[in-house]
């Protein structure tokens, strides 16, 4: 669907993006991650043809990305704004028409989406009368009204209460199931784990990491195991000796502990079980996958340290 090839962007002498390449496929959600100032917004503006890249090119389907693809892209920017004095329906029809819909289709689509999100009764309200969450829904409709093939969402979940958050997630998943390509930029790592199929991590304008969420988690696993047992904690720790390191421990109830262990040397789960099975009563042993937040931090922190040095 979308293929970005070695995109770079300079603002005067400052390099904002450097040789970024990635792709977004139909029926897939790509998480665009990075700390503040990493270049995510610039990248999304380039994808939306708001700014031009200094170098590189972007393909949309079989063609180079151009103005004619505007109607096939939906965009929800992080900095959201609407004309405050316009009525909800009038505003959505206006934005829909700018995205290539004719007036009749824009009215029909507006009606459909307002009904779908249960906000049809707001259609004559002026934007300034809406709460932040209500305005967010209107902005989301503006992004999807023209049924784009590619949806670019910058922090789509900010400002929503848990109920509406679930509604939004459902809609995004629905789009994915319809075969649309979706790019989500967010700092909410739980959303990334729950929604995204792949992630692209950029930092200081450079691509740091790209891949399938599950594969990345497995690749980043440092052989961490969570063990739940009943018995003596001291005996347990003595048995481990130098082959394993306790990274976390807590007493779940009286005499029952939950401990996170990291393997040392060439030890594996068999060695662990052999070591502890005669000392305590094992209740559960599971592999601990690193959270996306941990992966994010692991890749961003070292670069921050380098910069501070």
């Amino acid at each position, binding site marked *: 669907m979308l293929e970005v090839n070695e995109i770079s962007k300079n603002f*005067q002498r400052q390099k904002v993006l450097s040789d970024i390449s990635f792709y977004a496929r139909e029926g897939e959600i790509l998480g665009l991650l990075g700390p503040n100032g990493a270049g995510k917004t610039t990248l999304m*503006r380039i994808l*939306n*043809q*708001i*700014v031009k890249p200094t170098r590189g090119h972007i393909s949309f389907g079989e063609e180079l990305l151009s*103005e004619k693809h*505007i109607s096939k*892209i939906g*965009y929800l*920017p992080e*900095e*959201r*704004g*609407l*004309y*405050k*004095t*316009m009525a909800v329906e009038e505003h959505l029809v*206006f*934005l829909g*028409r*700018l*995205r290539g819909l004719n*007036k009749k289709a824009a009215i029909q689509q507006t009606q459909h989406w307002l009904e779908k999100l249960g906000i049809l009764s707001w259609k004559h309200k002026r934007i300034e009368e809406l709460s932040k969450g209500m305005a967010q829904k209107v*902005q989301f409709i*503006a992004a999807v009204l023209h049924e784009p093939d590619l949806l670019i969402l910058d922090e789509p979940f900010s400002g929503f209460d848990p109920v509406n958050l679930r509604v939004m997630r459902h809609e995004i998943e629905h789009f994915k199931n319809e075969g649309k390509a979706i790019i989500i930029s967010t700092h909410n790592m739980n959303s990334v784990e729950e929604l995204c199929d792949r992630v692209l991590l950029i930092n200081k304008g450079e691509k740091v990491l790209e891949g399938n969420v599950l594969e990345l988690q497995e690749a980043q696993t440092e052989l961490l195991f969570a063990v739940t047992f009943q018995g003596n904690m001291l005996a347990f720790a003595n048995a481990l000796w130098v082959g394993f390191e306790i990274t976390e421990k807590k007493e779940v109830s009286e005499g029952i502990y939950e401990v996170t262990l990291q393997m040392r040397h060439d030890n594996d789960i068999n060695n662990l079980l052999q070591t502890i099975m005669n000392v305590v009563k094992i209740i559960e042993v599971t592999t601990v996958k690193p959270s996306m937040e941990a992966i994010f931090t692991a890749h961003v922190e070292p670069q921050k340290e380098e910069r501070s040095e």
Partner: protein
Amino acid sequence: MSKTAIITFRELKERLSSRSFIGMTVLGPLVVLAVIYLFLSMTATEKSTWNVLIMDKNELFENKLQPKEDPLFAVDFINAFVDYDEFAQNPQFEDYDLSVWINEKVVSNKNVIVSYREKPSEHVQRRLQYIVERRLEEIMVQEFTDLKLQEFRAVKQPLQFTLKDANDPKNKKATQNGWVGFSFGSLIVLFLLTFGMTILRGVAREKSNRIVELLLASVNPRQLLTGKVFGIGIAAIIQFTIWSFIIAVGLWVMRTTLFPDLSDASLVAEAARQGVSEVDVYANQSPFVELLFDQIQYTNMIVFFVLFFLGGYLFYGAFFAMIGASVGSESDGQQFVIPMVFLLLLALASGYYAVLFPGSTAVEILSFVPFTSPVVLMVDLAYGFGEGESWKLYFSLFLLLLSALGVFALAARIYKNGLLHFGHRLRLGQIMRWLKN
């Protein structure tokens, strides 16, 4: 419908539905009419009928002033001279507003003294003078000549030396015409400032509420700029049309109901019948009334007003849009309006200069400078162009539109680069970089 048209329509709709626009559309012309009403009230008849005592000791006028009764004057004759104190204090004369002393030697000295209780307006003075003069002519014909009245009027004029400008033989360049042009020019400046500020505030607001990013994902900056400027421009033209209509209706109502005798239609008709010269008729009208109802060539002035307003609006509007797109916040925008206001005041001052010194080299130059030409050309147009000079009008308009296109192209660059910069302090260097990119 093109994207530019969609944006134009939205802008237009927003302006037309805004309370300030509706208020200005209705109140603006009413204020203009109120000012005109005040002027007319000052020059119009205060009383419907003036009681006039004509002191004609020798009964020269034979108790007769004019063939038909004039509703403005109720005339009585007295064959005595009443001095000022007696006229003022004697209860016998208290009903008279004016006394007219026809002295014995009036035929030779042409001197008539009028005393009043309440000063009559210039209009009433002129009318009274006109009537008395006509009667005097009849007497002179009767007493001293064998000529018919018409023949006498044809020859009675004393020798007059009239100085005329060789380049302007019809003496069109009377200053009052210039002021008409200046008024139209001032209206252009008022509209440019009002709607220029609307552009600036609109752009700055779109930046501050961040909708601009959503818009730029759908349209390019040039389409956005063009749509905005066109939409607001159409609103300005609509407002001007409504102003013109309300003022035209207002003037018509004033002329037919409130001040029916303003233009002295009867006087003009009577003068024509009696063979009185055109100069005499005009001498009997107030210059303001004459200017307002007879001299302004509304069609011509309005057509060129619209053309120069459009040129000036595109030219100045592009600057206002540039400022709106460059500033980091709406409040910053207010500061950067000062140079624009200064330029518009300069245009106004140039128009003033053109009224006082028409045809001077400086005015010639200013009439081609796009910053000042919308005002200066309105003054020039009011004075009129001599034969073979009308090219100046069209050339100036052409230069204005050409400059507007140039500034528009520059504005589009600033617009493209400045729109997505928020909360920064504006520096000249940055603007230069935006212009280069």
